[in-house]
């Protein structure tokens, strides 16, 4: 069980590192072969994740305002995802037990979903 977990972590960190390197060196704006959003292709409407690859590219180059203009949710949720990983897997749960119920409680989940849905509607209207 332990060695299986270790392999899983190794594979996951390798994939994440590869993805970060890809998004750092290749600008999705320039190269056409980055995957297009299927929702945008089919419906013509942007989904909440559209622009996220360009945003990640900008974020990795520390261009926060550029990233924000491509997809603000990536800028907001990037640190949030890291926080979640810290709480659940890197010992944050024991150090700050309150933090989990605050940021990963029922209300937080609702707020996040409403934000995503609201952003989804708003970006297609404005």
């Amino acid at each position, binding site marked *: 069980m332990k060695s299986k977990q270790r392999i899983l972590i190794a594979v996951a960190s390798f994939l994440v590192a590869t993805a970060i390197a890809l998004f750092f060196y290749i600008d999705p704006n320039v190269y056409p*072969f*980055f*995957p297009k*959003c*299927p*929702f945008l292709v089919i419906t013509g409407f942007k*989904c*909440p*994740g*559209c622009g*996220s*690859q360009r945003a990640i590219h900008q974020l990795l180059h520390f261009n926060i305002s550029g990233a924000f203009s491509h997809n603000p*949710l*990536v800028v907001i*949720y990037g640190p*949030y*995802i890291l926080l*979640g*990983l810290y*709480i*659940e897997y890197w010992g944050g749960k024991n150090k700050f037990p309150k933090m*989990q119920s605050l940021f*990963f*409680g*029922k209300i*937080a*989940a609702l707020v*996040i*979903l409403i934000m*995503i849905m609201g952003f*989804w509607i708003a970006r297609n209207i404005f």
Partner: protein
Amino acid sequence: MTHFFYIDSEGKQKGPFTLEELRSEPIKKDTLVWTQGMAEWKRANDVVEIKPLFEFKGPSTSPETNIPQQENYQFNPQAKTGVDSVLMPKTWMVESILVTILPFILCGNIFSLLGIVAIVSASKVESLFRQGLFTEATEASLNAGRWTKITFWVAIGAIILGIISIVLFVVFFGSLAGISSMLSI
């Protein structure tokens, strides 16, 4: 000596019992059981130590030996008092939220909807547990875990599909370029 807790048919928590004492308790294969070191409640048939009890369940051994052995029993260090003295099943709250947001960031909004099922189940675990409904809380936890894993693998599948499509795209246009250069010569 390991001690086991189980949840009876009325949803009440019973224990601690040694493995020997557990033999004379009305435990079925799907009774939820927990012991120290286990992350969550499990069905009795899934617990390695208890599984043999179902195979050799002979006449119940003398119930007089059911002396509570509280004195050297160590509770789970994270546990609090009262209802909390038993481990709360894993809530899956963090995982289910992450597994919903991550595919969304990769533009997989359809898969994110699966994650909502997991979040709803996950958010029930704690409140059910606080009400003392251990069976329901554990069921919600198992359900949340199941949907989190489904959402996770679906997202992985989508990423792999994306990578395959990139490769196909590159190969396709690469070969087109090759053909056209051959024709022009």
